[in-house]
């Protein structure tokens, strides 16, 4: 029993990280219908910015987290301005290829500056609490608490504020939204800022839990977050959260019964099976195409 609870905590930890990154994918997809392939690399950049902030500026965890999130948000806006905005009216494929290009650029630029994996110094004193027979580390508690808080804030923003309403309006109908006086470009920039900020925060927490970072760490995590977004129904923020937790659960469950190298095979096979039965994801709604 305690073993199960222990694994449940691990599922929550991994799922929260996937969910945070998946939200970035899903929001950008919502407003631009563009798969932002560079998003996993923004997550990696978050981890590296965190490394710089805590080794050079010697800041404690919470200010470092806030600064890194802000810097990541700036990076998101920057990539949108330089790479995606000139392509707003270009064919969709060229925008996707640009996103791939930006991703490769970020990876290799980081690799050129830091050829060796870096070790993140400990910022949160890692204590382990024993509750019954279940041990819970402070990092684990921190990851779950911070990500759930961030997700609740985001959900509030998307569902209740004017900004969130604008995001939903753009994702519903991008053509007539400017006619209502909504500044599309500004909203898209802010969406990128939000998504990239969450990705950067995920990078900070990921690197606190798994303290060795390298420029290619974003690829695999990024793709998995993307898969979570799709499983939940891409374009749907709550779907992305749900998808993240589902993928985290599946991955941990697989490692409970099989060698850990089988993790990817099972996770991706389940994804394919799910897509056969629900091609638009769990919470996604199929859009009818007018002829």
């Amino acid at each position, binding site marked *: 029993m305690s073993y199960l609870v222990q694994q449940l905590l691990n599922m929550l930890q991994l799922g929260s990280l996937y969910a945070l990154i998946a939200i970035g994918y899903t929001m950008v997809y919502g407003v631009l219908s563009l798969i932002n392939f560079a998003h996993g690399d923004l997550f990696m950049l978050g981890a590296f910015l965190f490394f710089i902030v805590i080794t050079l500026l010697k800041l404690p965890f919470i200010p470092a987290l806030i600064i890194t999130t802000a810097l990541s948000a700036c990076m998101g806006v920057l990539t949108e301005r330089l790479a995606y905005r000139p392509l707003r009216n270009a064919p969709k*494929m060229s925008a996707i290829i640009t996103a791939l290009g930006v991703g490769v650029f970020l990876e290799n630029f980081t690799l050129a500056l830091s050829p060796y994996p870096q070790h993140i110094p400990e910022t949160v004193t890692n204590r382990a609490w024993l509750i019954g027979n279940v041990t819970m580390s402070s990092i684990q508690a921190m990851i779950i608490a911070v990500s759930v808080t961030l997700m609740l804030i985001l959900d509030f923003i998307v569902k209740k504020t004017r900004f969130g309403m604008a995001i939903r309006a753009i994702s519903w109908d991008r053509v007539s939204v400017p006619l209502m006086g909504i500044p599309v470009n500004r909203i898209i920039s802010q969406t990128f800022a939000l998504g990239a900020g969450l990705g950067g925060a995920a990078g900070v927490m990921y690197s606190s839990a798994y303290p060795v970072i390298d420029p290619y760490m974003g690829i695999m995590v990024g793709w998995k977050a993307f898969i979570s977004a*799709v499983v939940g129904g*891409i374009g749907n923020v709550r779907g992305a959260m749900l998808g993240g937790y589902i993928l985290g659960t599946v991955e941990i469950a697989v490692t409970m019964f099989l060698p850990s190298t089988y993790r990817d095979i099972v996770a*991706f096979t389940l994804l394919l099976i799910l897509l056969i039965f629900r091609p638009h994801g769990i919470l996604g709604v199929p859009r009818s195409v007018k002829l």
Partner: protein
Amino acid sequence: MKAATFTKVLTAPVILLAGCTLSYSAGNFNLLDRYIELIVMYIGINLILTLSLNLVNGYMGEFSVGHAGFMAIGAYTSSILTVTVFSLSMGAWIFPLAVIAGGLLSAMAGLIVSIPSFKTRGDYLAIVTLAFNMIVKSIIENVDFLGGPRGYLGIAKLTSLMWVFFFSFMALWVIRNFVYSNYGRGMVSIREDETAALLMGVDTKKVKILTFMLSSFFAGVAGALYAHLLQFISPKSFDIIKSTEILIMVYLGGIGSIAGSVLGATVYTILIELLRPMGIWRMVIMPLVLVLLMIFRPKGITGLREFKWFIPAAEKKL
């Protein structure tokens, strides 16, 4: 048969024969610098990959991002055949058979991947192909018989300039003829509007299966050539980074264009070689070039246009 038609029919076999003779002698009598020969072989392999991916992404308008998975199947199949099943004592002629076998098995995988494409389109198909690539890579990593993550060793260097020329010419020829065939036209009509194509009587399922199988066949062939050129393959050489590289070549050259594929593969391979002295920075410059290209020429260098030579005579009159 009129003289003009006669020469047209013979053009391709004559070029093939002349090219094979030339590349055979160039390879065997050291007419070319070893380094340049290697680069030419890379260009040929990349050309096959680019052409085959352009079929799915450029002509059919689907977004496949897992092409390295097909390459892996071709590479591993042919390597197992040349290393364990056939021995080298049986002669070098066994090599093309192994390459084609790799292509065929890869085409079978293409058949499986084409099935989800009946229902899902666009971004969802991208995920299916991506997942396919990762599943192939993970399976290879977990099967000890294939060397697992350590890679597969002991492959003989069987890829020669002649075989690269032969297979890239075949790819060019077959794909060019496919594009201008009935099925090829159906493929383009799927890109423009799938529902309309269906209403006009295009058997979209059949066209999709054929396109995917042809595309994955040549990817497998390219993988087999690649394995026998490098003499070492590991799951890492066929991951998503490799797929991205092929995508870059396709979109650099131009979508929906054979001339574009030739140009894209050649320009990319040569550019990467020229930038080699810059070390890791070349991989920083390359994506920058790509992003700038996409901003200024969103369809690639020759997107959706064709070099005269690749268009059949009957099409030119239209």
